[in-house]
């Protein structure tokens, strides 16, 4: 299946949907910092892969799908959210690689180079995992 990019999709979301993602993301990051401060980096690090934004995104996808079908798309909305979860599952393989790259390289390379390599590795592994899942 072909991956497509459509910038016009940005205008379809209400400002409150962007605001809720900002708040969830901000809270998750602040919480990860507080936990690391209190319990140390080993416990705090677990929360760098906490599914912070996923519940909000899945809920928005369900409500958008319901709206698109004028209130008759309850089941299809939930199935659309299930597809989003499948993509997130593929993305978690990328998250594992991101953590691995930072763990091994952050003391050897400049910070910017480590984060750039880790983010590219996340994207490449996530796309590969998603393609393997689609080809099944």
């Amino acid at each position, binding site marked *: *299946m072909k*991956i*497509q*990019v459509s910038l016009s*999709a*940005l205008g379809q*979301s209400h400002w409150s949907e*962007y605001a809720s*993602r900002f708040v969830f*993301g*901000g809270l*998750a*990051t*602040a919480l*990860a*910092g*507080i936990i*690391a401060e209190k319990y140390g*980096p*080993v416990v705090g*690090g*677990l*929360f*760098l*892969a*906490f*599914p912070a*934004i996923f*519940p909000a*995104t*899945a*809920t928005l996808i*369900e409500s958008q799908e319901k709206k698109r079908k004028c209130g008759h798309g*309850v*089941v*299809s909305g*939930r199935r*659309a959210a299930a597809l989003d*979860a*499948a*993509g*997130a*599952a593929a*993305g*978690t393989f*990328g*998250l*594992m690689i*991101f*953590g*691995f790259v*930072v*763990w091994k390289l*952050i*003391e050897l390379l400049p910070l910017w180079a480590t*984060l750039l390599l*880790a*983010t590219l590795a996340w994207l490449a592994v*996530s796309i590969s995992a998603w393609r393997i899942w*689609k080809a099944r």
Partner: protein
Amino acid sequence: MLIDILVRFAVGGVIVSFFAALGEIVKPKSFAGIFGAAPSVALATILLTVMKEGRAYVSGEARSMIFGAVAFLVYACVTMRVLRTGKWSSLSVTGSVLWLWAAVAFGLWAGVLR
């Protein structure tokens, strides 16, 4: 401490919103889902923590993050299967299954990392 939390909130909010916007503009839906597991919280935390605690500290956090991501994989797979049935709302499923993420993450911490 309060300023540190506010800075983390703002930087985390911006980076998470950026990845969420990327997820909005790509299709199909299942591919957009990978942005739900973007390293947004990690990027914000690492950027701020390196300055305060140093690289060795962040390296330890990144090692634990791998186990957090394994827990996220279990969480996403269970969520996907339950949502596919169409019986329960996304909010109730994604919210109520969060305990599973915590159980797997802390189980791995107790068994491997501690």
